């Protein structure tokens, strides 16, 4: 089930809110779990059964690791836990990729299995892994299977993140408070996230598709494509994270932030501190540091860096373009680390131009499935092939999406947030803002509903994740 759907907003939400808040405290996690399983099963009943199996493995191995903590067997259990849980993801996500490449290398033609990827598998796999590793490292194992299952399957973050660490919500799984303050803030965050997804991200996607379909492309079109794709991915992803964080608050959880205005970064290093932060920190804590991090010889450190970025790319999808996308950032980070960072810090303008260009280029690779085509698009940014700079079609697209592009570009900076914070904390205007906020939210919800009722496109970015 998608957050951006009528079914979710007007059937699922009222049903869970009603049952969750009338349920006694000790049954709240059970209600959350049941609804989360229903939410997931809505996208495929068999996949929900598989997720339950993965959760059961995490639960049992967690208990075993804790039971034998400090003994060698504990490490063996950890190995089997990680191997068994990751094998689901390997099978569903990467089998066809490996067959395809094996065929290409050997000249064989082993038929592809045409396996469809269960949505969210990459997110819950990483959550289960983080749980068993944390237990191995000393975190208390969760004895109550419902609590653990409620954490892993929790619908707000199940299909698009953020990747919530067990340690971050362990206490709230046992005991949490609910208040109008949290629910009100959560509602605001949810509706804003929904609007980011439905109004901005979907429009940016439509624009990119129009350009993708245009027969005679121009330099300006390639730039609009790159910018619209970068904005689409950002608003879709961060919109989903906002919705997850907002829903979490309504149900008494505090999920960590996942995006922090990444487009204002001045280096790739900073960009990844602001972009999909839960994934970056997961790879840091569960791969990079276990590999030795930077406390190893330089050659080994380089291997660690490139391994982490290769896997970061590969996590996003079983395709070479994702691997290259990840490695591209790996290369940038290494270059920055060696010498570029100090120059970037000196110039506010050049550093921003550099990272925005790098990000736009990277998202072209991210979005376009074949590398050949991606390079055509990147070449097109510089007029490769002698294409014209603009055309009547280009200017029409630009004119037609100008307001949405401006809204998206401004919305990708902290400008609106800081303005809203200033107004709401102002002694004079604070009260007016308080009155206007609920009105604005209801208007946004009506508009979002209108766009969903009369929907022409509602792309789902995470079907390859």
């Amino acid at each position: 089930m998608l957050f951006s759907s009528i079914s979710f907003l007007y059937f699922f939400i009222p049903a869970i809110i009603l049952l969750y808040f009338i349920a006694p405290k000790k049954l709240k996690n059970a209600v959350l779990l049941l609804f989360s399983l229903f939410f997931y099963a809505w996208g495929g009943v068999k996949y929900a059964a598989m997720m339950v199996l993965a959760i059961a493995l995490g639960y049992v191995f967690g208990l075993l690791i804790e039971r034998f903590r400090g003994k060698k067997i504990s490490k063996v259990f950890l190995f089997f836990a990680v191997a068994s849980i990751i094998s689901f993801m390997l099978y569903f996500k990467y089998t066809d990729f490996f067959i395809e490449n094996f065929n290409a290398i050997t000249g064989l033609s082993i038929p592809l299995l045409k396996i469809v990827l269960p949505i969210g598998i990459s997110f819950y796999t990483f959550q289960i892994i983080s749980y068993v590793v944390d237990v191995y490292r000393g975190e208390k194992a969760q004895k109550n299977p419902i609590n653990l299952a409620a954490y892993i399957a929790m619908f707000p973050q199940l299909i698009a993140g953020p990747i919530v660490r067990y340690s971050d919500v362990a206490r709230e799984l046992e005991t949490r408070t609910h208040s109008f303050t949290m629910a009100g803030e959560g509602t605001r965050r949810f509706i804003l996230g929904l609007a980011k997804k439905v109004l901005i991200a979907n429009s940016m996607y439509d624009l990119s598709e129009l350009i993708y379909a245009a027969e005679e492309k121009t330099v300006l079109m390639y730039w609009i494509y790159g910018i619209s794709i970068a904005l689409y991915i950002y608003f879709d992803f961060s919109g989903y994270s906002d919705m997850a964080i907002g829903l979490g608050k309504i149900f008494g959880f505090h999920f960590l932030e996942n995006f922090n205005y990444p487009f204002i970064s001045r280096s790739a290093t900073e960009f990844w501190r602001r972009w999909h932060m839960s994934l970056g920190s997961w790879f840091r804590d569960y791969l990079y540091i276990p590999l030795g991090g930077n406390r190893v010889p330089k050659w080994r450190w380089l291997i660690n860096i490139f391994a982490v970025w290769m896997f970061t790319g590969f996590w996003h999808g079983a395709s070479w373009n994702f691997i290259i996308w990840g490695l591209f950032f790996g290369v940038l980070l290494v270059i920055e680390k060696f010498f570029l960072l100090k120059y970037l810090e000196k110039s506010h303008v050049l550093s921003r131009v550099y990272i925005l260009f790098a990000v736009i280029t990277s998202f072209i690779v991210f979005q376009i499935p074949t590398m050949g085509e991606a390079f055509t698009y990147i070449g097109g940014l510089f007029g490769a092939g002698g294409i014209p700079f603009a055309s009547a079609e280009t200017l029409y697209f630009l004119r037609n999406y100008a307001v949405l592009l401006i809204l998206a570009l401004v919305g990708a900076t902290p400008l609106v947030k800081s303005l809203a914070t200033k107004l709401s904390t102002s002694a004079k205007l604070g009260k007016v803002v308080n009155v206007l906020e609920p009105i604005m939210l209801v208007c946004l919800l009506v508009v979002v509903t209108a766009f969903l009722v009369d929907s022409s496109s509602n792309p789902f970015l995470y079907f390859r994740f």
Partner: protein
Amino acid sequence: MSTKIKNILNCAVMAIMVFGFCALFLLLPKAEFLDSERREPAKFPEVTLESIMKDGLEYGESFMKQFDDNYTPDNFPFRDFFRNVKAWVGSNVFLQKDKDGVYVVDGIAGEMQEEIDEESIAHAADRITFIYKTYLEKKGITPYISIIPDKGYFLSEQNGYLSMDYNEFIEKMLGSVEFAEYIDITGALEASDYYASDTHWNQKYLIDVAKLLVDGMGGNHNSTYVENTLDVPFYGVYAGRAPKPLKPETITYYTNENMEHVTVFNFEKNKPGSIYDMERAHGKDAYDMFLGGEIAKLVIENPNAKTDKELVIFRDSYGRSIIPLMIDDYAKITVIDTRYQIPQLLLMGVNFDNADVLFLYSTLVLNASSEMK
């Protein structure tokens, strides 16, 4: 107002919206027909174990996907209101000029036709040439051709929308069927001669076009008519797609005394037909009242015609509304639509003696002519 009250209000507005519309969805009766979109809403999907268990590549056919994508949006309470909200926001807040290629200028909706489809022109020309070579050339008949521009001809470029070069299109088409004599009707038309919410032209404004065609084929059109108005609102194909709400329209149709004595025969159903089908006028698409909708072959005979000449007209849906205005000028009109049957079958029994032959097609069909047989 304090922050605490604001947060309570945030919760309240969300609750009122989601619980309220959930209740309305469940309680309100569902529409049988979506008038403004000229279609039936999606029905509640079939609930079977098979439809629930579908996943992976088959998920699109599952109960859940049908429920999400079709049933709930189609049956959402006040659907038309929400569609109007979307249209309003699109054009007044996001300042978008079109919605999926459809635009509205001065209350008239049009659709951007950007590309000239050379293959389509070649196919249409090939089909017209086939008829000419097989049936007309040996008899020394020079057919006439007239091309009906779609509304984009009058609206697109002039209002900053993407547009193909219509003159180039017409030139290309005519260059491929040089055996035919062209009757230019573009000068007799303007955007307001079409329904505001539909692709088709409006019979109310076609008397001068009918005269151009009839006179262009050597006749002398001077009929008079009584204007009639249909008692049902008409929503054209753009009503459901336009970026701004479009008002329901009225269908006007002309009659005269001669029409009362005309016989119409529907060869597709092998039964009598009608010039204006009042049953279809009250159906899903009121424009189907003209000659009873899309019928591959009709023969109209007028015992009181001014001449004993016949007309064989190859047409698309535009032709249906102008043909009634040509009835006085021909003793017999054979109306052929080769999109539904092969011409060899449709032209059985048609001898073309003493007949004018007219190919009357719109740019919309000629630029997407794959259905022409």
